[in-house]
């Protein structure tokens, strides 16, 4: 048992972060297996570069950025066939009447899947993962103004899908 492993604290925190890392990855690529591949790549990279992480920095943001970069690599490697998420499956619930909670939850995910990638990443970081704008902008490597405009457009689109303007009685 290693007790003086310099990476030990980071590994402990990564174990605790795993569910969130997987969740973020799945919001980038819908196929859960591909998402876990991406998380695995990111974990390996993080451990290799553990000296670059400072304990006062947020490990979640740092990891989200590594995942996002792994995702960009994947997209590049696969060329433009990279729309890996399954729109037919994901879109199945769009338009279902929101009658019960189960259906409601499903339709949030389905609506998310229909967002353009950039907006989905912004919404995922801020609304799902709860990152401040500054951190989210840093993860996505964009100015904060770009982040807020993607976020605003993503929210607008989600709202339109989830609460479509009613034309008559529902």
């Amino acid at each position, binding site marked *: 048992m290693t007790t003086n492993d310099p990476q030990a604290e980071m*590994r*402990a925190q990564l174990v605790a972060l795993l569910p969130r890392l997987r969740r973020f990855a799945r919001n980038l690529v819908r196929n859960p297996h591909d998402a876990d591949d991406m998380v695995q790549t990111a974990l390996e990279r993080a451990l290799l570069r553990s000296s670059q992480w400072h304990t006062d920095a947020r490990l979640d943001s740092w990891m989200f950025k590594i995942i996002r970069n792994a995702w960009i690599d994947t997209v590049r490697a696969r060329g433009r066939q990279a729309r890996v998420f399954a729109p037919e499956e994901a879109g199945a619930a769009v338009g279902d009447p929101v009658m019960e909670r189960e259906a409601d939850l499903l339709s949030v995910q389905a609506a998310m899947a229909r967002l353009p990638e950039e907006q989905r990443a912004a919404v995922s970081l801020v609304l*799902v993962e709860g990152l401040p704008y500054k951190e989210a902008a840093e993860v996505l490597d964009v100015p904060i103004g770009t982040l807020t405009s993607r976020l605003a457009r993503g929210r607008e689109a989600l709202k339109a899908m989830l609460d479509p303007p009613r034309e008559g009685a529902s």
Partner: protein
Amino acid sequence: MKYSDETLMAFADGELDAALRAEIESALEGDAELERRVAAHRALRARVHEAYAGELDEMPPQRLLDVLGAGAVSKVAALDDLRARRRERAAAPRWLALAASVAIGATAGYLAFDLGPRAQVTSKGGVLVADASLEKSLSSAASGEGVGSTPRIGMTYRSKSGALCRSFTASALAGVACRDGGEWRIRVLAQIADAGAGAGGYRTAGSELPPAVRGAIEADIDGEPLDAAAERDALSRVK
């Protein structure tokens, strides 16, 4: 529309500077339309967040835990814990406590871990160690017997790193503890699927041990289990 939608979104997200924030707060007084727009942002935020909350309860696949050196974690224990979590919101899922305790050794001090009154294991500075009763068995009982009825020791072996390790069953738990730093540290811990029926002593790495425990032993054992004489000799040197 005095305030843009983006400004109201940032207000709802708590991202505005103090001055603008205070301005909007007072503008909200008696402005039902403004209030409605802010509420819509908050509601959407809460709805999206809630829709993804359930994913945090999922146990990560072993291959990801392996990258972090988090060892074998019993799915049985994890599933039990998920059920319990739905009933009462626990601080951290049990798979996490188990994985972290196995992976991290001394530094996981942030884990609060309470297994209840008949625990047999306890958390000490974030490390899972044997409690007094299990400690006694691990330090003195021969394989195949326990002090009293429980805990029982299954087998004794040397790990690949040279540590003295023993498998045990104790009430509903089975696991492996290794001697390290003057205490018995829990290497792997799993719930026994049928605790009532399976409480007999294990003389070998027997098939009754939960797969997670068996797997951990198989992965870490150096050679064969110690025979009775070698075991006595090793235990006599446990301080």
